[in-house]
């Protein structure tokens, strides 16, 4: 009987196709996604059936954590610099060019304006520590939150206001924020929520 010769096959696989797939996926992810922004506090938003999306640009985001601390962020680095300069002028604090530059890189901050200088001197990873994340004062005696929002509006009139609050935030805190916004005639704003399916018996 003749021996059956088994052909030895090469174990090397052509990786070209796989490579194509990998880079195709990579391109897809790079184009469709946007980077998650670091937030000073963890907030879990309540679910809602609303499906309106938040615009990408011109948003002042107000972050409220469960304890009622208020944080603020606005997009556009130039806008941030202008905001801080104006706020500094209003509260008699002068900021150096380096501090302004540092501020323009911060996404969300939550410190009283008097503490801003020390806050900006901190290292990035120290800023979000609980003892440094104080929240912006927004009570009736010292309403810096109100000044921040109105200053932001003068810098860029197209800013929309988006409130992202934790579901456990108490109603009085929210009421106070809404009242403050009403004072400066900001009556339309967005409330950030997470998605929940709508019941289907309309």
């Amino acid at each position, binding site marked *: 009987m003749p021996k059956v010769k088994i052909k030895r096959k090469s174990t090397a696989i052509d*990786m070209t196709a796989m490579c194509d797939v990998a880079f195709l996926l990579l391109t897809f*992810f790079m184009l469709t996604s946007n*980077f998650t922004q670091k937030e000073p506090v963890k907030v879990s938003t309540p679910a809602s059936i609303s499906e309106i999306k*938040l615009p990408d640009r011109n948003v002042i985001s107000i972050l409220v954590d469960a304890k009622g601390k208020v944080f603020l962020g606005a997009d556009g680095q130039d806008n941030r610099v202008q905001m801080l300069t104006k706020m500094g002028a209003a509260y008699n604090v002068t900021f150096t060019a380096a501090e302004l530059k540092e501020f323009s890189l911060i996404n969300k901050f939550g410190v009283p304006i008097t503490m801003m200088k020390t806050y900006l001197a901190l290292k990035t990873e120290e800023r979000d520590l609980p003892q440094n994340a104080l929240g912006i004062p927004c009570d009736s005696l010292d309403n810096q939150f109100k000044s921040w929002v109105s200053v932001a509006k003068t810098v860029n009139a197209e800013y929309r206001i988006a409130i992202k609050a934790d*579901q456990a935030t*108490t109603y009085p805190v929210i009421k106070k924020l*809404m009242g403050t916004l009403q004072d400066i005639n900001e009556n*339309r704003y967005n409330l*950030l929520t997470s998605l929940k399916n709508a019941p289907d018996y309309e």
Partner: protein
Amino acid sequence: MSEVAQDNNQGKKKGKTKKMSTRVDFTPMVDLGFLLITFFMLATTLNKPQTMEIAMPSKEKVTEEDQTKIKASRAVTILLGKENKVFYYEGTRENNIDPVLNQTDFSPKGMRQFLIKKNYDIMVQVRQLKALKDAEKLSPKDFEKKRDEIIADKKAPIVLIKGTIDSSYKNLIDALDEMAICNIGRYAIVDITPFDLELLAKKL
């Protein structure tokens, strides 16, 4: 794609030169590709955040004549209590008789059932309109417009949402959600009044 056509004449000059394979091993490149994909998947978000748009009344003082007086029969007041409890009553105090304060919650069989019953005509109309849209006889834009018209009906209930100090932000969002689900066109977030607190105190 990765193979380059070889110049055959070059090899034949001096006997046998070893033909070098032009195949490139793509494995490390695939590794790199997937590494980058993993990074992008972890560092980014695909979905934009969802929002709910609300418009609050402006704080400018309105004179008595400018204020729209609503019929008591149309008014429904929702009180957000503590531990996710909800209370509602219709109308207001008339001839010294207090409205009945009912306790419920935000489950599908709670507040929603009452609102749907109260707003039944409009719910039916919107449902018919939605059927038209689903059958593609109506563009989404027209649907929105007609829906807004139906919702603004003169006989539809007007809901006042009032939060107590014990309620949370979640309750407020739930209440606003119910407005959207039940097609309530006119609602407002209002400050709680002593009268409401009195009613609540009596109930508890």
